[in-house]
């Protein structure tokens, strides 16, 4: 499979605080990577490094076989100003920003593309509503449309399962499974249970990164949480076995 992204011994952090130490990660075509780890462990920092929002202190971030280094990105919903005067259709269109020059006009085919996508996601009837009028699940759909309208080769989702009900969560991972046919997906989540039943590989970030070529979580990985935790296993039917303390 074609390699899309490679992080080589990356160190990154803010000011004097080193958050990521010696992180190595490779993302290939059709990968579906789940990133888990405790709060403050560096999940978001890792995403920021990949997205180019912060420069690593040391190490390399290489993109291979990617046009314009284009990555689809769904940020954490609580970083969004929901009172901002912007309707849904404009949020979706803003996902085409990198295809436009500074003075570039949006053509009718761009608007048509946004319309088709909103139709697929079931939010077309909301297109003229302000983002402040939407529910958590509707908002996530809008931002998912924005993230994928540019047909990125890598899609990154930062905690897409916060502020949504379990119904939407199931639906979301259904959509992601379909998208995974033509793009690599990286998803960060708190919810180890849900994430492990959908992704193909799992990485734990707690300062450093341990990478696992399967979606079965073992004792070793859970140690990164430094606390007793539910152990999740997958049989024919996904089920949970609670560990003795």
């Amino acid at each position, binding site marked *: 499979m074609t390699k899309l992204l490679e992080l080589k011994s990356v160190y990154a952090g803010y*000011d004097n605080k080193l958050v990521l130490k010696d992180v190595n990660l490779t993302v290939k075509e059709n990968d579906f990577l789940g990133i888990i780890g405790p709060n403050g462990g560096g999940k978001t920092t890792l995403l920021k490094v990949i*997205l*180019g929002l912060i420069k690593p202190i040391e190490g390399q971030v290489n993109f291979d076989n990617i046009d314009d280094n284009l*990555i689809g*990105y769904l940020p954490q919903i609580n*970083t969004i100003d929901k009172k*901002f*005067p*912007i309707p849904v259709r404009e949020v979706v269109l*803003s996902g085409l920003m990198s295809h436009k020059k500074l003075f570039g006009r949006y053509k009718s085919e761009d608007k048509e593309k946004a319309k088709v996508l909103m139709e697929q996601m079931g939010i077309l009837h909301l297109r003229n509503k302000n983002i402040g009028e939407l529910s958590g699940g509707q908002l996530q759909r809008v931002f998912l449309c924005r993230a994928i309208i540019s047909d990125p080769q890598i899609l990154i989702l930062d905690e897409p399962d916060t502020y949504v009900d379990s119904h939407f969560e199931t639906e979301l991972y259904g959509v992601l499974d379909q998208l995974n046919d033509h793009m690599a997906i990286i998803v960060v989540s708190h919810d180890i249970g849900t994430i492990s039943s959908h992704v193909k590989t799992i990485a734990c970030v707690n300062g450093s990164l341990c990478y696992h070529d399967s979606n079965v979580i073992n004792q070793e990985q859970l140690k990164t949480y430094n606390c007793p935790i539910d152990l999740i296993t997958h049989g024919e039917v996904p089920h949970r076995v609670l560990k003795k303390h």
Partner: protein
Amino acid sequence: MNEIIELLSYSFFQNAIGAAILASISCGIIGTYIVARRIVFISGGITHASFGGIGIAWFLGFNPVFGAAVFGVLSALSIEWVSKKTDVRQDSVIGILWALGMALGIIFIYMTPGYAPNLMSYLFGSILTVSSLDLYLLVALCLITILVFAFMMRPIVYVAFDESYAQTHKAPVQFLNYLMIALVALAIVLNIRVVGIILVISFLTIPQTIANMFTQDFGKMILGAIGFGILGSLLGLFMAYKLNVPSGATIIFSFVILFIIAKLVQLSLLKFKR
């Protein structure tokens, strides 16, 4: 009615009406950006900092508007720079610049020998005495602002809405932020002649807030803000003439009256919908 027609024949009053309309257009556009991006406090800081420029220009003997423009734009750019590049708390920096500008203004105006300028006209504005130079500058400001928004409204709105997302798309975030904060400073400084330092912030926020009650669309909010701006400032202008009080104060007063009427209309519309 005859009185109004007679009034309209005076050239000073025609200038005042022109200034009110031009101020409404420039403030309508820039103010919508200020309100949407929640940088009202930054704008307040820039407004008061520019008073330092007025004082220095007066002391050195050139047109205060240019002193204010240089000072306003420089303080705007430094606020933007400080908040992005250093870990100093942004609102503290604004507080310091705010007070420093006012202090410098007072010091230099008092140090200037001879007749002290009419401080009140800078603090509260005097739309009835605008010069043709003021009008030309306002026309230029309106043209620049309209051009910038005609060609770049989408990138400007997208960056203001979600800066880090825009950055992942390699949008010129930094360029747009500096451009916009400089435009904010210019709009503030040139409109100080119309409504004054103390009241210019309401010209940049009240019409926008009224428009925001009826639309959530950035572009429509701009048009609404311009409309309410023209309506309120013309009402205020006549009130100022009638009562013989500073026009800045009466313009803001009529804005607030419009705001209250709009709020009542909005509430009754909501009731009607249910």
